[in-house]
């Protein structure tokens, strides 16, 4: 039991990650896939943030009178995650922009309907690449 409770932050990460992965695999709506992707990314962010926590540690700000005897949390994983959050936002924005273009082309954002319209996963090269000339 202590294995479950003592490592609860890892369980949160694993559960979130699998939920995200499941949504990406099982849902047909492209917007829901993007949401699944976000949950997937957030799980890793949670992992890093909980990694930086030191039991009894305080915020890593140098107090007046020196840092003698003060226990700090590790700030580095948190700083790394600022970058990862920015990457996540950029990815989401780009994904949604692509969804808008897909909707314009097919009139739907359901993956199965798109595949039906595009003629399955195999392709007819002619129709797909035609009109590439300038």
């Amino acid at each position, binding site marked *: 039991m202590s294995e479950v409770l003592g490592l609860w932050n890892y369980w949160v990460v694993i559960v979130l990650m699998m939920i995200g992965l499941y949504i990406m695999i099982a849902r047909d709506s492209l917007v829901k896939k993007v949401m699944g992707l976000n949950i997937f990314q957030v799980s890793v962010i949670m992992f890093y943030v909980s990694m930086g926590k030191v039991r009894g540690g305080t915020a890593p700000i140098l107090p007046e009178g020196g840092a003698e005897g003060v226990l700090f949390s590790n700030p580095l994983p948190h700083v790394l995650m600022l970058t990862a959050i920015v990457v996540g936002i950029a990815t989401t924005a780009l994904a949604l922009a692509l969804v808008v273009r897909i909707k314009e082309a097919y009139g739907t954002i359901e993956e199965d309907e798109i595949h039906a319209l595009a003629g399955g996963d195999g392709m007819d*090269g*002619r129709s797909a690449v035609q*009109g590439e000339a*300038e």
Partner: protein
Amino acid sequence: MNAHLLVLEVVVPLMAAPLCMLLPSKPAARMFSIAVAWITLYLAWSILGALGATEHGVIAYELGGFPPPFGIELRVDWANAYLLLLVSGIAAVVLMFGPGSAGAAVAEGRHAFFYTAVLLALAGLLGITVTGDAFNVFVFLEVSSLASYSLIGLGRGARAPMAAFSYLIMGTIGGTLFLLGVGLLYQMTGTLNMADLTTRLPDVLDTRTIVLALALLIVGVGIKLAVYPLHQWLPNAYSFAPSVVSAFLAATSTKVMYYVLVRIIFTIFGAAFVFETLHADYLLLPLSLIAMFGGSLAAIYQHDLKRLLAYSSVAQVGYMMLGLTLASATGLTAGLVHVFNHALMKGGLFLAVGCITAQVGSSAMGDLRGLGKRMPFTCAALVVGGLALIGVPSTVGFVSKWYLVQAALEQDLLSVAALILLSSLLAVVYVWRVVELCYFSEPDATQVEVTGRPPVREAPLGQLLPTWILIGSTIIFGLTTDLTVGTASKAAAQLMGVGP
């Protein structure tokens, strides 16, 4: 200037990208990005020269003057320098392909954004190659990936955004798994610097966390590298992207990811741990053999030239992975040489397809009929590139396969050596299909009438020149192997830890 070569290699394209966005006209943006690509090529060449002058073959640069492992370190040895030269060289040649964003669905007046995305992808790829910091690899990986998703989405036709979207989902999963792997490494060692990881990892190697980290890193990079069976995104992405983008990404993106995998396995974890303790080769060797055959077989049955080349890429990644899993200096040399050689031939072949789509309006196999007479130079490029894919002597493909077979024989893997030769025969089949259509079939009379297009002429010089620079170099580097094999064997020796 010389002291800052490493950082300039990344900063120049990274800073040039937003500047490019401000340029008013398409020719200006195009000339600007070509100039930037040639500058990075010059810098890469200088780095290679500077590396030859050093004693141990390593150049390190402390970013912002913070000493590693606290600051980010840029670190280049023979393997990086080799990749830098390849990536910047391909970018310099491919960008010259006129009229630039050919085949991309870019609105008039927005062409500067196309070149901005190309420069960002270039900056990201060069950044991955030059850095010595594991988290930094993730950041540059996402920079280059985001730029390439948007470039692929620019392809004409309705299916390009869908291909880009699937690639985005797959690629981000790969990137996130990589990030998780890096996090586990940091948790166990307290460092992100690759050289520092090498010294600190042996103490904790026998923990399950480290094995998990290795698995996550290999799968994460494997998705971006399109290792079989993680290659599902590649055929769609390459066949629906604009041809110039396909040429650029096929020749650089997977190659840089191969370098990252080599760096993870050989520098960070060490070949002994990965292949002797964990026996990753039991998994990777069969997968690379399946890729060699599966990719080639799938290529034979494609109805579109671009898609045929994309599936052939899956097979060629198999050859590179095979060189890596043999885990010997010769095997690694073969893998790295094939990285360079395959970049030249696939870049050249995709540019040749770009010539065809620009003139004919399609890259469907049926439209190749009788094209040998109407576009002799383009079809000749297809033939030479195809011969290189097969591995005919005096082309680069032969050099790669020669070393690969040698590496297999070194370890008494006769069956593997035989399979390499056998899979080359499959390449003969799909290349022959193209040759037959180009030279030995007559164009469909009805087809010409229906499309009502003016008769197809040879591609203009602005398209033929970059195509033939790449195709020509597949012959040049097939005859003189000093640069490719020389540098690759130095890199392999360094990675295997036997010193240059």
